[in-house]
């Protein structure tokens, strides 16, 4: 129907998503939300890959996106396991509680 979306727009979107993810990780105190914003960053990277793939009309971008998804899933699962243990030990998910090692 209307003109195809130009590659710059998609990259811009991916960039914005990426920066949102970074901001999320820095601002949020709760570990779950930090993991969540890291997920956003990973998806942004995936989006960039898909866009690049479409630019060169090669499937590689999408194959890469699938890999990114699997990796993100694995990483989040391990992350949640760790979060469970943190909650058992510290009774709170606030990242600033975990500051014993310093100097």
């Amino acid at each position, binding site marked *: 129907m209307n003109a195809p979306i130009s590659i710059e727009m998609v990259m811009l979107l*991916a960039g914005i998503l990426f920066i949102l993810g970074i901001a999320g990780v820095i601002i949020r105190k709760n570990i779950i939300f930090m993991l969540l914003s890291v997920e956003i960053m990973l998806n942004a990277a995936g989006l960039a890959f898909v866009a690049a793939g479409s630019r060169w009309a090669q499937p*590689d971008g999408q194959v*890469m996106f699938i890999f990114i998804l699997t990796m993100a899933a694995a990483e989040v699962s391990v992350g949640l396991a760790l979060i469970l243990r943190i909650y058992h030990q510290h009774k709170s998910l606030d990242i600033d509680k975990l500051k014993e090692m310093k100097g």
Partner: protein
Amino acid sequence: MSGNDFIALSPLLLLTGSSVLIMLLIALKLSHRNIQLSSLLLFILAFFSLFYEPDVSPHHIEPLLVVDRFAVFIMGLIIFSGLVVNILSYIYFEEKEEGPKEYYVLLFLCTLGACVLATSKHFISLFLGLEILTVGLYALIAYLKARHHNIEAGIKYLVLAAFSSAFLLFGMALIYLQTGSMEFSIIGRSLHSLPSLPPLFLTGLGMMLVGVGFKLAVVPFHMWTADVYQGAPTPVTSFIATVSKGGVIAVLLRFFIVIDGFRFSPLMLMLMSIAIASMIVGNLLALQQKNVKRILAYSSIAHLGYLLVALIPGSVMSIQAVSFYLAAYFITILTAFGIMTILSTKENDAEDIESYKALFWKHPLLACIFSAALLSLAGIPLTAGFVGKFFILAASLQAGFWMIAFVLVIGSVIGLYYYLRIISKMFSGRGGVPRKEQRSHPVFYLVSVIVLSLLTLFIIWFGVYPSGLIYFVDYFRLNM
């Protein structure tokens, strides 16, 4: 996948197979000792499989992997370190009374990841290897429930690793966008004609370097090192310090060689500034540190700085210097952390420098091994570290990089201070006669001491008569 491919990939296949095999053995409820022995056997098998690599010219497994002599050398180093960590971790986990059967599975997987990195020539294999390694490490770092800082180190590493791999991916996407392919050689060919790097490629490469920088723990991305090294169990720390860095260095070197990044001044300048920063900051951070693990963490930052100095000239000699220094650095760090593993008991983890007071008079042999390792880290002659540092200085001076060589000298002088501080702590104090306390696992204790003394012999041997290793390194050189 012809016959040759299988032989070429035998180490990787063996590693995957053995991780699966170990899982089965765990299912059969074998005791911790049997599992450890079997994993040891499998590691040795994998190590010897390397010797049967076909000496045919570099064997390309399109499109992801290439198994050339340099890859075999790096895989050899990685598997050897995995083997040593495997041997050392038995006593450590027995002391902590936690039957870590799944630990060995993760160990195999992480070694596999590193090997994949060593042989990768494509972004996807780079990403795959890196992620197998990193996710495996998440679990390894947070392995011991009882340990005090354990969980904190685990979560820190997880969030930061994921964060930096996001950067890596975004960088790869930009480069892919720019060059249209993810294979190093094709990227290289596309850059061949361009006098300078296009901006998009530059930002992509920059972001990739953020991810790689995090893994190598060079200066702007070094802050996690000390906490994770301190938090993780000691064998895992030695694993992180050696294997994860070795694999990444290999792929970085291969990538730079293929795209011939040495001729682009912004790239080189950036690498130089990172190298200088990490040498200075790494040594300075360890100056008055009380915790030996944190000292070794900061010193590994500095050592990565030295490695980057070796990498920068990009000449034939600099590649030899990188592989020589990697070998020397691996052996020394393994010995140092090995000693810490042996000395750590149930309660304290032989972290605090005070626990090394008058060690020479309690355990003369262990103290000698530890001083040899520390002297090699400091780069004093008679040790492999010195010849490594000499090699790096030669490589950088041959290409005329006087500035970095001078900063390397200043860094290693600062470094002298804290290595000597540990050594003099070991020799201070008028300790009495060495007391014989009962060891829970005499056999394994003996095996580990033998392994460590073997490593020390290597350090001294490469220090006094290094031409053997130099010839070896030259044979397994990555040809330009």
